[in-house]
């Protein structure tokens, strides 16, 4: 039951997109987010959609998997759409029924805000689907390392991230085991009201916390005994290199942004 939860949704295949430098991928994802906000009309969204479609097929990820990332957001999306649709008061009235009024500005905003959300989620999940958690934290560490000058703990942050990610499956397994052990002693996690259920979690959470702290202590000891002393002077197993493909990817995204800017200049205000 708990094993079915997929966290850190890395999609393990080999593709040119997977092989890109994680630093470049993080920067390009941020660029994509900016691009999504620059869009003025549906044509711009069309461009982004085509771009994402091509990238996902290059990455050998079914577009369906990518689109699935939007599913948990469906309520927020619906809420965003409806709130913008009904509570925008500027612009021409298109439609009115009792206390509900829809204006053209409202429709415009509702469509734009929800599409923006959708594309934000899809672009960022393209990053997490094609980059393993380890690579991601490596990339983040290197991107943040200039901030070390102002004593920002970039290495420590990345280390914490990778340790946390590493222990998610372990803790899930542990939870499953403790849950079964308590069920064998007659614990009931499924029935009763909210308070009864919250109380039923105590026999699960206490052992889980105890074991998490024990593991953390053991891990700290193991790191200590292998002379871990933080990021200073530490070399890495995987040295990240920017290759030709990375530059091509940069050019592609730059091209996309240029197109979107052109679209914003060419298409008159007021179009959907």
């Amino acid at each position: 039951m708990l094993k079915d939860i997929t966290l850190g949704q890395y999609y393990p295949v080999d593709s040119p997109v997977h092989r890109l430098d994680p630093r470049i991928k993080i920067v390009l994802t941020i660029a994509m987010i900016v691009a999504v906000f620059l869009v003025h009309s549906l044509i711009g969204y069309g461009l982004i959609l085509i771009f994402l479609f091509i990238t996902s097929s290059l990455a050998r990820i079914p577009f369906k998997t990518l689109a699935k990332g939007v599913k948990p957001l469906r309520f927020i999306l619906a809420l965003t759409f409806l709130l913008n649709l009904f509570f925008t008061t500027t612009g021409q009235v298109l439609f009115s029924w009792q206390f509900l009024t829809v204006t053209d500005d409202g429709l415009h905003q509702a469509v734009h805000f929800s599409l923006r959300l959708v594309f934000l989620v899809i672009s960022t999940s393209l990053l997490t689907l094609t980059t393993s958690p380890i690579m991601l934290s490596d990339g983040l560490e290197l991107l943040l390392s200039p901030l070390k000058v102002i004593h920002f703990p970039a290495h420590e942050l990345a280390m914490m991230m990778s340790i946390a990610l590493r222990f998610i499956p372990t803790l899930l397994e542990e939870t499953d085991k403790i849950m079964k052990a308590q069920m064998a002693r007659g614990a009931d996690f499924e029935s009763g009201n909210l308070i009864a259920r919250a109380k039923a979690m105590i026999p699960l959470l206490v052992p889980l916390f105890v074991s998490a702290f024990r593991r953390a202590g053991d891990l700290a000891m193991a790191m200590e005994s292998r002379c871990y002393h933080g990021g200073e002077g530490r070399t890495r197993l995987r040295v990240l290199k920017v290759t030709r493909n990375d530059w091509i990817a940069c050019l592609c995204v730059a091209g996309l942004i240029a197109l979107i800017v052109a679209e914003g200049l060419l298409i008159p205000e007021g179009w959907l």
Partner: protein
Amino acid sequence: MSIELRDVTYTYSEGSAFQSTALKNVNLTIHDGEFIALVGHTGCGKSTLVQHLNGLLKPSSGQVLIDGQDLHGENVDRRKLRQQVGLVFQYPEYQLFEETVARDIAFGPRNQGLSDSEIDSRVHRAMAHMHLNYDTLSQRSPFELSGGQMRRVAIAGVLAMEPKVLVLDEPTAGLDPRGRDRILGIVKELHRSGTTVVMVSHSMDDVAPLATRIVVMSQGEIAASGAPREIFRQRALMESIGLGVPEAARLNQALREKGLDLPEALYTQEELLTHLLRLGKEAGLC
């Protein structure tokens, strides 16, 4: 109370890329009063099998019958049946959570809905069974105890439910020899006093003097099942599974090959010792 597994197959993460079959068509009947040792290599499906005995796992196909009643049939109170089969997981001390030892042991009986006085007497009995001193230990935090004591408290927590069948998954893993002998001695006493016992182990020396039947598992299937004497006679089979036979049986065979007059199927230290003393007397050595 008898437990019968009929053609039980269990597949983890069925239908996904990580699919793996842990049990294949397992047939096993556990009768009243037996002491079954379930032995096999790591990953052979022992732990998966014992989780079927009280309905924590539902077979992908096949049936689990308790006294002839299908455990996963309709209108079956699984919680009630589960309480009759006490399952002690591997490293059970990691499931302790209460503030005091007595309250932790009372968790099971409390879930059974028993009266306070009954719960109290069960806690007393369970602690006595596990050689835990009620006066000195019952009000202490379980997290202050030694590893061996924690293990015994955790087993007491299952015993307090007074199950008819006690299933133990590697109860001696990670204990020192003294702690191991203590737990094995207690399990032996429990079996003598009428509890049916199923014990998972990979140590032949642990189970040899205790079990009435040994069930050998290999790659999700039952490779052999029978009285210890019969099982340990099949040394080649046991070694091909990577299990071997008890040290006493190995020594016995080596001595027989040297020409000593010993019976073929000896497997416990006591038996071997008695026979060696007899031979010594006959030869006038002692």
